[in-house]
């Protein structure tokens, strides 16, 4: 579980995060949504420990990040998996080398044990024929799967995803969403996903927080978000023509 208490983050004169408090539960897919520039990525980077908030605390299973020593922070980082927006796979390594990288770096497993673990996670993300391929030789959807495999290879407690289905076709995007949700439940991980994809919100948003201009504007579930009266949220949710029509149908049906 991750608890966030009143965090503030600025870059120079620009105040990006303005007192955000929330919590992310274990075994659930938690979504952070909002328009571009709302502070989602900065918020996620604060959760990852890449940015340190000027004010407020972030607690990981009861441990306050700011109170941890350098070594404890390093240990905590090894408990985190991250799927970057552009996958961030190492270009010079093959798919299996990318997935094996954290194991080689941080464990004392022998080669066979590592290979077994790599095969297991690649199988889990439905990638069985791409072991020897380089990132430049695989599709965007496959890259996301490799990134997910690399993120879960160390059995993390926390999984963070920055727009995991951006740039993917709708069908592949749903597959990636479902894969993340399945993995979250299977391994009982605390998953936090940054997205502005409403399909993801509908499909896997067990808990959603909506950011606007650095503030937490709204918090709820994927069922509640379509019924809320919050104007900023409805403007965001119904910004696409498709969702506007769905809403219209829903209102007509209700009346």
């Amino acid at each position, binding site marked *: 579980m991750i608890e966030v208490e009143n965090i503030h983050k600025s870059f120079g004169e620009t105040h990006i995060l303005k007192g955000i408090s929330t919590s992310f539960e274990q075994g659930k897919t938690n979504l952070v949504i909002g328009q571009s520039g709302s502070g989602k990525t900065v918020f996620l980077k604060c959760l*990852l*420990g*890449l940015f340190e908030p000027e004010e407020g605390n972030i607690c990981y299973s009861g441990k306050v990040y700011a109170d941890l020593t350098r070594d404890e922070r*390093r*240990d905590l*980082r*090894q408990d*985190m998996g*991250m799927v*970057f*927006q*552009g996958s*961030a*796979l*190492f*270009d010079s390594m093959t798919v299996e080398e990318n997935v094996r*990288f*954290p194991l*080689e*770096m*941080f464990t004392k497993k022998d080669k066979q044990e590592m290979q077994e673990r790599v095969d297991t996670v690649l199988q889990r993300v439905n990638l069985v024929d791409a072991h020897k391929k380089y990132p430049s030789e695989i599709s965007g959807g496959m890259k996301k799967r490799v990134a997910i495999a690399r993120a879960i290879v160390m059995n993390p407690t926390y999984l963070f995803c920055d727009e995991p289905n951006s740039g993917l076709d709708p069908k592949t995007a749903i597959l990636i969403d479902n894969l993340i949700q399945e993995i979250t439940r299977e391994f009982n991980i605390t998953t936090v996903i940054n997205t502005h994809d409403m399909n993801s919100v509908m499909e896997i948003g067990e808990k959603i927080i909506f950011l606007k201009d650095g503030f937490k504007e709204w918090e709820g579930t994927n069922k509640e978000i379509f019924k809320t009266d919050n104007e900023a949220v409805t403007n965001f949710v119904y910004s696409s023509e498709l969702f506007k029509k769905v809403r219209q149908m829903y209102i007509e049906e209700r009346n």
Partner: protein
Amino acid sequence: MKYIAAIGKYFIMVWEVFKKPTKWSMMRSLIFKEIDELIYGSMGIIIFISFFIGGVVTIQTALNLTNPFIPKSLIGFATRQSVILEFAPTFTSIIMVGKVGSYITSSIGTMRVTEQIDALEVMGVNSLNYLVFPKIIAMLFYPFAVAIAMYIGVLGGWIAAVFGNYAPSGDFIQGLQIDFIPFHVTYAFIKTLVFAFIIATMPSYFGYYMKGGALEVGKAATTSFVWTSVVIIILNYVLTQLLLG
């Protein structure tokens, strides 16, 4: 003020490179890879340039020695001194800044814009140690490349002198041996080691701290070439004054 801040940031980066080392088994393979990429991969251009620079120095010296009272052995002497003291360590280093430095800046810069460096940091890896330390160690082998450049430069000079009929082989070789001061080779290798450190770290700095996208990677590589060359030229002057002055 901006430049002073950048210099401070560079030294902090260098300090960070040596903190929290990467697991040795991984580091070892990274070092071998960098030796292959930075040193072995540059040997072709180093040999090519050294050979022709040696030849040109010989021809220019010979063409300027028109007085018949000046012995032809002076051509060999001038070639040796020019190649060992200046052309092999400094000229080769400028070429290396162009080849190796641009490669370092663009490869690290690309890793920055594609979030690969963030990925390393998130995993708890000291990205500076992982990326820059192997390059520093690999560049410790750079004096071997410069030693080869010295040899090839003198060889190029000998071939130009003998086959261009500027000096007989015996005179040229005699000139190579006149007033030889072993410290000049030591001086050249001290310079080379300092330049090697600069070539490994300054382009890394420009790549690691760059911001933006693909266009900025190109700009960073250009800026890196300019500033690394400037620093090498200044250090060349300072070290010459300190060691030979």
